[in-house]
């Protein structure tokens, strides 16, 4: 019953957003009904399309978890993009660099190396914040740009196959691939497992309690004997780790190599998804599937109904708006209150 109630708000939000989007489609001279049926058909009708939706949802789940975890610790990680990118690149390098390993060793090794790269990249802003008080919003934004340049350099100068005209790493070995069972990608299942793991870590362990305490009130946590510096660094590293896994799965399970530009924007979508899920790790999964379903079918909608695919961004923004605005929600539930989190509460604390 409780789950049903908390699911009702997002469902109403989606319906309202679709109605507003329909108005916009109508105004632009196309048929909303045609557009939406194509949107649904393109993402859920048939196992193959459903599989593609799950595939697209995978990095979004990981990016969403990364941002949500940092939020729990009171940190705003805008650097998911850079961490994901490094994960994708290092996983790609490990995927082709090691040869002759069995799948059971090679695939997890490449996955974890990518995740470690993401964690290291994420830890930098954590260390800078804990030791020098540098605001993580600035450092993570800057590190995104550094990561994009560094990854391109590594791709061009170090890991490019001689003779390849394109800037990209060679294809990974078969033993590093993350397979797809029927139409269900294993990567998606890994991401779901991580969502459950993050939930467990946050809710059921002492460490998770410490992270949440620092997130809610750093000075009280510090007074209670929690080392806030340690928590800040670890929170950022874990956040980067999660984003790095997202990038690794994208390389090992979908693209088969790292190519600059192919992961553009995935890290930023993580912010949207974490906010949509109100930082709840379990709620990240349906949020990511929802956004992925629109990404997956936008081109079919353009083909069938002649509606520009960018309309899905507008709909996403509206969903977020309706989910997040307490007063609109209260029109439907007069009594629903409490448990509101403020994402900006720790904006300036260090």
């Amino acid at each position, binding site marked *: 019953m409780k789950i049903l109630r908390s699911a009702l708000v997002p469902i109403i939000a989606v319906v309202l957003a679709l109605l507003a989007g329909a108005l916009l489609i109508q105004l632009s001279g196309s048929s909303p009904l045609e557009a939406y049926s194509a949107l649904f058909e393109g993402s859920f009708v048939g196992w193959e399309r459903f599989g593609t939706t799950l595939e697209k949802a995978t990095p979004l789940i990981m990016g969403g978890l990364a941002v949500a975890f940092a939020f729990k610790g009171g940190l705003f990680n805008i650097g998911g993009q850079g961490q994901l990118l490094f994960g994708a690149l290092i996983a790609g390098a490990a995927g082709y660099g090691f040869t002759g390993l069995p799948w059971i060793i090679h695939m997890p090794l490449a996955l974890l190396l990518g995740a470690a790269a993401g964690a290291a990249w994420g830890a930098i802003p954590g260390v800078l914040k804990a030791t020098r008080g540098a605001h993580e919003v600035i450092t993570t934004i800057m590190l995104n740009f550094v990561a994009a340049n560094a990854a391109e350099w590594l791709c061009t100068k170090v890991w490019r196959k001689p003779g390849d005209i394109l800037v990209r790493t060679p294809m990974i070995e078969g033993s590093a691939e993350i397979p797809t069972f029927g139409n269900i990608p294993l990567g998606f299942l890994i991401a779901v497992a991580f969502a459950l793991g993050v939930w467990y870590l946050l809710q059921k362990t002492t460490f998770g309690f410490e992270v949440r305490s620092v997130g809610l009130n750093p000075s009280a946590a510090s007074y209670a004997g929690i080392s806030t510096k340690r928590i800040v660094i670890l929170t950022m590293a874990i956040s980067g780790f999660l984003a790095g896994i997202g990038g690794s799965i994208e390389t090992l399970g979908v693209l088969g190599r790292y190519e600059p530009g192919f992961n553009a924007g995935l890290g930023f979508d993580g912010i949207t998804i974490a906010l949509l899920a109100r930082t709840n790790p379990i709620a990240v999964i349906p949020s990511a599937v929802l956004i992925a379903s629109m990404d997956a079918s936008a081109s079919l909608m353009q083909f069938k109904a002649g509606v520009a695919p960018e309309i899905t961004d507008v709909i996403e923004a509206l969903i977020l708006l309706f989910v997040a605005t307490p007063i609109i929600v209260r029109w439907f539930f007069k009594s629903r209150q409490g448990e509101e989190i403020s994402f*900006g509460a720790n904006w300036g604390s260090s």
Partner: protein
Amino acid sequence: MNSLLERIIRLRWWILVFLAIIAFTIFAGDFRQDPTTAILAATLRHSTPLVLGALCGMICERSGVINIGIEGQMLMSAFVGFTVTAATSSLYLGVAAGLACGMLMGAALGGLTVSLQGDQIIAGTVLNIFALGLTSFLYTPGETIHSKTPRISVGPLADLPVVGKIFFSNQPLTYVSLLLVAVIWYALFKTTWGLRTRAIGEHPSAAETVGVSVAKMRYLNLIIGGGIAGLAGAYLSLEAVGSFERGMTNGKGFVALAVMIFGRWNPVGAWGAALLFGYTNAIQTQFQFRGWLTGHPQFIGMIPFIVTIVVLAGFVGRARPPAAIGQPYTRE
């Protein structure tokens, strides 16, 4: 006399950074006047959208509302400004439309955060996604404008060596940004408006008890801030590039946010931070001219971001934002 010495000692790191930059500029400019002037003039140009964006963020945050939607406000205004200019072939109407669009986006942020009491981070994110989606949805490739905003020289001042080229021979919105830094600094710290703004950002309920309407002030300031972000958007499409592209802000709104925090929520500080960032952008071109690091353009591309991190972590350290930031205000 003593206090002057103390001041110098207190600002020693900044003075050192400043001198190092001057020395490096002259070196990078090959000890000649023209390239050195060119680097400094480009610095100012690159810093314009950032300082405008940062001023927007500052006015909002000083009144207690986090604005991470600067990116979206800039993008939407760049689009509207460009479209209006393409339709009317008037640059000034385009700039005015950009300004108005920014103000509207500011009002939208006000609606979400003040009237509807929504979370401020989410509201900003909504603006960002909405602007990216809507501008791409409505944009028709192939529209053009005939010229960019013209360069205006300020009489004889423009003929001064070095300084004239840098400060007195610019396009209109660059002048506007310089003017706004001074005006907003004065307004924020020397006028009633500024006092009220800072009060509702630090302690809204105290401000309310002495008769300041928090809601009205926040709306007003979000609209003013949005207008300034609108100018930044108009700068991008009408003054810097002369066209519109999908997602053309390319993270500048976020960099502006960083510049604002870097400048410690102070207009002059933000201007300094924007100049530093603009300088590191301008020096990239000079690197290419001099043939430094030519085989590794990616390292040249990293310079602005690494310098920012190093300066931030090395010299700036902790900064304290307005106290009431991030929380919706409800009357008791």
